Every structure is written in structure tokens, then in C-alpha cells.
């Protein structure tokens, strides 16, 4: 009995100490969505339960290791008892109720993450090896970055063109695979203005690690500005100095990452899936059909909008064919300037 009291006291003290610590740890990335708040609450409840069980098992185990050890040259055996049905039933029933309760909570939260809203913004997400593209069917715009207005429910319709990928924005806490030949749905309400990344979570081949795209959660006003710019109908308000011209090289560098170019094209000379961009401009390339050509602006432009036209010898025709649709002419020119700068 003395031992039972000792170990109970130790366990209670340790549980409270660890709970205190755990509640002051930032377990997750920032909460970027309404769903994140729900999921984090459920996760924290999991953590609390884990701590109780962790201390319970380790407490009894370590107490036994230190207190019930055999003294040197003690030939006697332990106290003989071989079971206790009441205890066994208890530690079957209590965990059973606990896990079923967690499953019940889980079902409720899942239900909330699935709810549709009337004013939701539909975004068609297409994944392919190893880039993402985002279309807004409402306005017929497409982009390599995912731009979302804050506090408005977004409805993603997810497709894949080749293999299984997975749409994951850690700050949103939600994940959905994109499966070739199937249509899947994911809904999220972003609640925090900021820049995040969608990261492919399902191993999808060579450049899986680099299959990322920027996610920009904007104020409704900023989103409206972006939408209008994208549609080419943006009128600068009074006092605003028009669209500030951006350095094309800087723009190109930004697009290279956001559009996923650097997943396959290195900028340091190493060969990945596609030819490196370092020293590319001005070089004479040999193509798969045996012809040669000098890399100039026209060639680069053609290779971006119609990548199958000329395939550099030793490489495969695997580059997505839709960059002409999802990149603006300014962005393409930026890319070309950026490539030219990489000598």
C-alpha cells in the first residue's frame, strides 16, 4: 500500500508539471485557418491524454526499477500474484471509453471541416510532376501561386495529371491527395493574412522535395487588386503611382520558385530533370533530333510556352505544357531576364 501511495503522488506531481510545460509549448506552426483552431484543440486534448498515460506507465516502471530491485546475494523471489480480473476489466473498459470518445470528437471536427458555405471561392488545383497550378473558374484566371482572400471559405477542387500528389499547407492543417482520374475536394477558411507554402506530401518521384508553391492569404482589398491586375482591368486609384514597375530579374527569380521551375532546373550548374540555367543563355544546345541551336530570347520563350518544340539531347519531354496559360507575359519575360542573368 505504501508503494501505491508513493507512486500515485509521484505520478500526480509529474503529470501536472508536464501538463504545465506542454501547455506552454508551441507544438504547431501558426494557425492559418478556422480549421486549424479546431484541429489544434483536438490535438492538445490528445497531448494531455498522452502525457497522463506516458507518466502513468513510465512512473510505475521507473518506480519498480528503483525500488523493487534485487539486493546483492538476495536469493528470494518477488511477491507472488499472477493477475487481478477487476484491474484487467478496468484497464480494458476505461481506455475503450476514452478512445471511442476521441473518435467521436474526431468525427465532429471532421464534419465541421467538410461544411460548405454559400459564398465560397472555388479554386481548381492541378498537380503534376512537380508543379502546382491554380485556376479561378469564376473569373477565368490561372496562377502558379495560390492567392486567397482572408476569412472567405475556399473550396479546392483537386486534380492530378500524372501520379498521386498531396495538397498540404501546414498552417491550414489540412491535407488531401490529388489522384489521377479522380476529383477530390477540400475546404478551408483562411483566417490570417500571410504567406505560406503548399507542399506536396505524397512521394511523387524525383523532385518531390521541391514541389512547393506559394500561398498568399490577403485582405479582401488586396485580393481584389490582384484579381483585377490578373484580368488586366486594374485602374490605379487616385494618388497611387500606377503599377510600380518591378525589376524583371527579381520578378523572374520569384516566379522560378513559385512556378516550380527550380524543381527541375538548377541555377548552380548541376543537372536535374531538366538542363541547368547556369550559363544557359548564349550556349549552343544539341537537340534530340540532332539539330543544334543557340539559346536566345526566342528560344527561351518557346521552351517555356511550348516545351515540346525542342528537347535538349539527353533530357525527356516531361515539362508541363501549360505555362503559357498560367504565367503572364511579364512573368515570362522576367524568367527570361533571370535566366540571362545566370552566367
Amino acid at each position, binding site marked *: 500500500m505504501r508503494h501505491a501511495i508513493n507512486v500515485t503522488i509521484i505520478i500526480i506531481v509529474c503529470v501536472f508539471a508536464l501538463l504545465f510545460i506542454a501547455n506552454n509549448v508551441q507544438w504547431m506552426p501558426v494557425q492559418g485557418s478556422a480549421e486549424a483552431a479546431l484541429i489544434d484543440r483536438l490535438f492538445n486534448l*490528445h497531448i494531455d491524454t498522452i502525457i497522463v498515460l506516458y507518466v502513468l506507465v513510465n512512473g510505475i516502471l521507473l518506480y519498480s526499477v528503483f525500488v523493487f530491485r534485487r539486493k546483492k546475494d538476495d536469493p528470494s523471489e518477488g511477491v507472488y500474484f499472477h493477475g487481478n480480473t477487476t484491474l484487467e476489466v478496468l484497464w480494458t473498459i476505461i481506455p475503450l471509453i476514452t478512445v471511442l470518445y476521441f473518435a467521436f470528437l474526431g468525427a465532429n*471536427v471532421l464534419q465541421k471541416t467538410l461544411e460548405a458555405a454559400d459564398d465560397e471561392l472555388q479554386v481548381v488545383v492541378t498537380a503534376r510532376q512537380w508543379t502546382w497550378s491554380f485556376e479561378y473558374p469564376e473569373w477565368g484566371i490561372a496562377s502558379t501561386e495560390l492567392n486567397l482572400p482572408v476569412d472567405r471559405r475556399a473550396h479546392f477542387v483537386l486534380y492530378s495529371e500524372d501520379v498521386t500528389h498531396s495538397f498540404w499547407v501546414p498552417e491550414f492543417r489540412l491535407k488531401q491527395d490529388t489522384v489521377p482520374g479522380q476529383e*477530390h475536394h477540400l475546404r478551408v477558411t483562411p483566417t490570417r493574412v500571410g504567406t505560406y507554402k503548399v507542399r506536396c506530401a505524397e512521394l511523387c518521384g524525383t523532385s518531390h522535395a521541391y514541389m512547393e508553391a506559394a500561398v498568399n492569404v490577403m485582405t479582401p482589398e488586396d485580393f481584389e487588386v490582384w484579381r483585377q491586375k490578373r484580368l488586366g482591368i486594374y485602374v490605379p486609384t487616385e494618388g497611387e503611382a500606377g503599377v510600380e514597375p518591378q525589376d524583371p530579374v527579381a520578378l523572374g527569380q520569384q516566379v522560378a520558385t513559385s512556378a516550380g521551375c527550380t524543381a527541375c532546373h538548377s541555377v548552380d550548374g548541376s543537372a536535374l530533370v531538366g538542363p541547368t540555367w547556369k550559363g544557359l543563355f548564349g550556349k549552343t544546345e544539341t537537340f534530340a533530333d540532332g539539330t543544334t541551336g543557340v539559346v536566345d530570347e526566342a528560344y527561351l520563350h518557346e521552351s517555356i510556352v511550348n516545351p515540346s518544340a525542342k528537347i535538349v539531347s539527353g533530357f525527356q519531354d516531361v515539362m508541363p505544357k501549360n505555362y503559357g496559360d498560367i504565367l503572364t507575359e511579364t512573368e515570362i519575360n522576367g524568367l527570361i531576364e533571370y535566366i540571362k542573368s545566370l552566367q
Partner: protein
Amino acid sequence: MPTWFRSLLGFIIGALAGTIVFIAVRAIGGLPLLSADLRPLYAMAVFSGLVGLMLGIDKELGLPRGLVGMAAGFVVGILTTVGIRSLLGLTPWDSERVWVVGAFVAPIGFLLGVGALSDWLRWIVGIHTPDQHGPPPGKPGWFRYFGFDQNHKVIGIQYTVTGILLMGVAGTLAMVFRTELLAPGLQFLKPDTFNTFISMHGIIMIASILLGVGGMANYLVPLMIGASDMAFPRLNGFAFWITVPSAILIVMAIFFGGWDTGWTGYAPLSVRTVMGVNLFLIGIFFFGFSSILGSANLIVTALKMRAPGMTLFRLPIFVWAMLATSLIQLTATQFIGLSFLMVVLERNLGMEFFNAALGGDPLLFQHLFWFYSHPAVYIFILPGLGIVSELLPVFSRKPLFGYKWIALSSMAIALLGFMVWAHHMFTAGMPNALRLPFMYTTMLVAVPTGVKFFSWLGTVWRGKLFFPTPMLFVLASIAVFLIGGLTGPPLATVPTDLHLHDSYFVVGHFHATMFGGFVFPFFAALYYWFPKITGRMYNERLGRIHFALQTTGFYIMSLTMARTGLLGMRRRIADYDPALNIQNLHVIMTVAGFAIFIGVLIGVYNLVVSARRGEVAVMNPWGSRSPEWQIPSPVPEHNYEEPFEVVGNPYDYGLPGTAYVRMNGHEKVAAPGTAALPAR
């Protein structure tokens, strides 16, 4: 001729033969005779040189004969395909298809060469062959370990040693890519090499675990139940030897571009990736035969060959665990074989099972795959948990708390294991009508697992614990498996899994279940039965160093993995975003990983050296009641001189005057260990 000269000659002839075969195959394929990258040629020459060396030592050795048979199998398969293709008017050489057929024939060639089919083939033509006992006439004792043998103890050791070798290969791969992950950016691996390495690490570790399980089962179960061998000794040898060509096929994949699908081989990626994936898929297909046949053998043995008086509830608890394991292996393994075979057929014969564009279903692969691969996790851990339950009473000097509950919880886990597979697919795009029931069933697994934990606590409570190396590993198993167990429910709950799925959290969880459920108990078993197997004691000091490195290393590594995953680290990525601020965590994981690696190396060194030079062990160093400790070490060829009788409960430590077995007219009352063991 002296042996050294014959082996040297053998090496040279072998290397030359290997080089000629290599060039000949390229010639058949119409390729330039030498490839630009000469490494495959060197590998082939060294490998066939080693085969020649072994044949030089003794030309009747089974292993090199099997390897020659395997090479012949490849040649036969390749030539047949080339022939059929020319008859059909196709281009005779199609790299992928000829190698695939070769890979299907090669294991058969290996089995013929090693002699695993010899007796059966003779039976077919009506020739009687007697059971084989001891090394073949005129051969030294070590000879039987390198060829086909029917004795369960030999086969057990063959399984175990092969398992440890593969663990070494897979562990080395892990160290390579863990080093790559020390910093963001690519250091020295290309993305494809990284992906191949993680894929190989996963599947070779799994093969290694299955071999380790087979090793423990084969060596221990007949001894524990008082049988002289397994029910079907030839099937037993066959089940081991088929794993060798399978493992070779998997490793060979690296010379065919590797593969980048992970060990899961998800279609359609596995259909579209490089041809090395075929060898991995076919290797696992053949490996499955070992699981199915080995488990059938074990079930029959455990149910039909028990000593008199050994009722089911007087069965050693490890045998219960192995029964549960074998039931899963016997009935689930077919599904991974099937799913992998379907990918091979889709790649090579255009049967579009998983191609959505032609009416196939990519999710079908995942269902078939996980229908085996989730229960497979219980194949890996149930034997280990059985070891924990088996050893804990001995080192606590107390009965196993709740014997029947523990025995039945293994069965409950085995049964529930079949109803939870789709929890691997919560984000895969399954209907919600499937996500919810699989969440509930998955949660239920926590209940029988919890019963085991609490029963272990009941076992150590008020015991007289002592802590030689095996007990330290048992305690570490519990502590580490606890991490694996407790990180399970957040993954089983759908909404939290939506964040955690495919992140490093899963990697941490999975490694904790594998280390707690297999690796730590496996080493506990190795140290515990080492004196029984070799007749010598291991070095206690090195054992403790191994324990300290592996336990602290692993504890830190798995918790850090889980932490990194919460922050957004995905699994299976060659490079990570520096913006995630997780480089420090990766440094910790790599250092901890190396601690584990060095610990295991020290452990293996300890076992190898002690097997030759260790102190001679007393008969029953741990004071166990179990029958195998009441006979001399190493165990005689036929185990028990006379059959023993079970007269009591296996774990009644502390009940004076009782025994588990009566042997040669004596009840074997066990006293606490009397060997030179420290008290603490």
C-alpha cells in the same frame, strides 16, 4: 591443393566468368560491350569472384551453388524472352521485359542450386530420402549453415544472421541519407539517389525484420514446446532459402536505376518510374512465399507437437504471440504479393489495373497494399511484445501478470489488425462513409495494446528485479514502444491525421513502434538466448554500452522526428525548406541516428566475438523455468533426450516448490540466476 590456393583460384575464375557473362548479356542486348559507368561490371566481377572463392573452399557449399543457379536462372529467363520475342516478330531485346522474366526465373534457379528442391524432386520420381541430421558426412560443423539444412536451430540461426546482415545494409543507407539531411540543399546525393536510398532502407529493413521474426520463431518455438523440430523441416529450409534470392533481387535494383516510390510502391508512380522498381516488386513477391510457408509450418508445429500436459493456457507466451503472428502472415501476405504482381503486369504486359484513363483505379492499389501492410506491422511487433512478456517474469522473479489477458490480447490485435487498413488512406480521397468506421476500428487497437502495457506493469510491481543486458533491452522496449503507442491515436483521429499524415510525425511514430516492438526485443532475445545458442556468455560491459547508445539515441531521434513533423517536415524529401527552421532538429536526429548505428555495431561485435571467446555459460544463467534452459548449451541436435512433461504454469516464479516441466523424472525448480551477474 591447399584451401587458400583453391579459394584464390576460385575467386579469379569467378571474377572472369562474371565479366564474361556481363559482356555476353550486353552483347545479346545489342548494347556496346562496356557501359560508360563501369561500376556494375566491377560489382558483378567482385560478386562472382566471391562465389568462386566460396566454391573454392568447398565445391559442395549450398550458398555459392545457389548463386550460380540464380545467374543461370537469369540467363535462361533472358534467353527465353529474347527467343519468344523474336518468334513474335518483336524487337528481340527489350531491357525491362527480358530482365523481368529473368528475375522470375532466377529465384527458381537459386533454389535448385542450393538444394532446397532436391528432396521433393526425388520424391516425385519415387526415390526415398531420409531426414537429414547433423552436418553432411565428412563436412565440418560450420558447413551446414551455408547450405540447405533441415534442423530448426540451424535455420533459426540462418534467418537471424541474414536478418542482421540486411539490417546492416539498410542501416548504412539510413546513415547516408541522414547525413545528407544535416543541412538544407543537396550536399552529396542526387534526388533520385536519395529516393532510391529511402525506398531501399524501408523495404530492406522490413525484410530484415521478417527474417528476425523467422529466426526467433524457428529457433525458439520447437524448443519451448518440447518438439524435436518443426513439423515440416524441408518446407522450413525452403522458406528460409527463398528469402536469399529475393533479397538479392531487391539489392540488385540499384544497378537498374533504383526506384523512387518508397517501400510502399504506390501506383501509378510505380508504373511510371524507372525499371529498377520491377526487381523490388518481384523480390518482395518471392519473399512472401517465405512468410506464408513459414507461418503454415509454425501453426502446425505449435498446435500439434506440444509436450504432454502443455495445454493452450500453459503455452509459453512467446508461442502465443507467434501463433497470432502466423495467422496474419498466413492469410494477409498474399495481398502484397498480388498488388505488386499487378504493378509488374501493368508495366510489362499493359494490363491497366491502376490507370484511371483506361478505367483502372489508383486507390485499388492502396487498398490491396495496406490490406497486408497494416497487419504486417503486427507481424513485426507481436513477436517482440511476446519476447517482452516472456522475459519480464524471469528478470522480475514474479509470475506474468494476467497471462490469459496477454495471450488473448495478441489474438485480439491480430484480428483487429485486419479491420483497420484504410487508416493509411484518410487523406487519399476515400468517401467519408469509409473514413469514420476506420477511425473507430483503429482506435480499438489501443485497447488490447494497453492491456499489454498495464499487465507488464503488474508484472514488475513488487518483484525482485535484476538488470543484465537482456532485461535492460526489455525495459527499453516498453519505454520506446510506449512512444510508438501514444503517438498512434492522434494519427488514428481523422482531423488531426489530416495535418500529421505523410509528415515526419508518422516517421517518428513508425520508427518507435518498430524499435519498441521489434528492434529492442530482438536484441533482448539475442542477448538472453545467446548462452543457449553458443554455450558462451556475451560481454556484459559491451552489452550495456550498446544499450545506452541505442536507447538514448533512439529516444531522442524519435521524439525529434515527431516534433519536426508537427512543424511541417514532410516524409521522404531529399531537401527541406530552410524557412521551416528545422535544421537544428535535423542535426539532432542525425547525431542520434549515428549513436544508434554505433550502438548496434558494438552489439554485433559483442555477439560475434563472444561466440568464440566468451566465458563458458552455466546451464541456466537466468534461473528460468522454461524447458530449454534445463538442457545443455548449445542445444543438442535433437533438443530433448526424452520428452518432458508439463506439470505447472510457465511463470509461477515465487511460488515455492512448483515447476513448469518434469524432465527425466525430475521437476525442474528454478532458482534466481546464479551466474556471475551484478545485483543491480
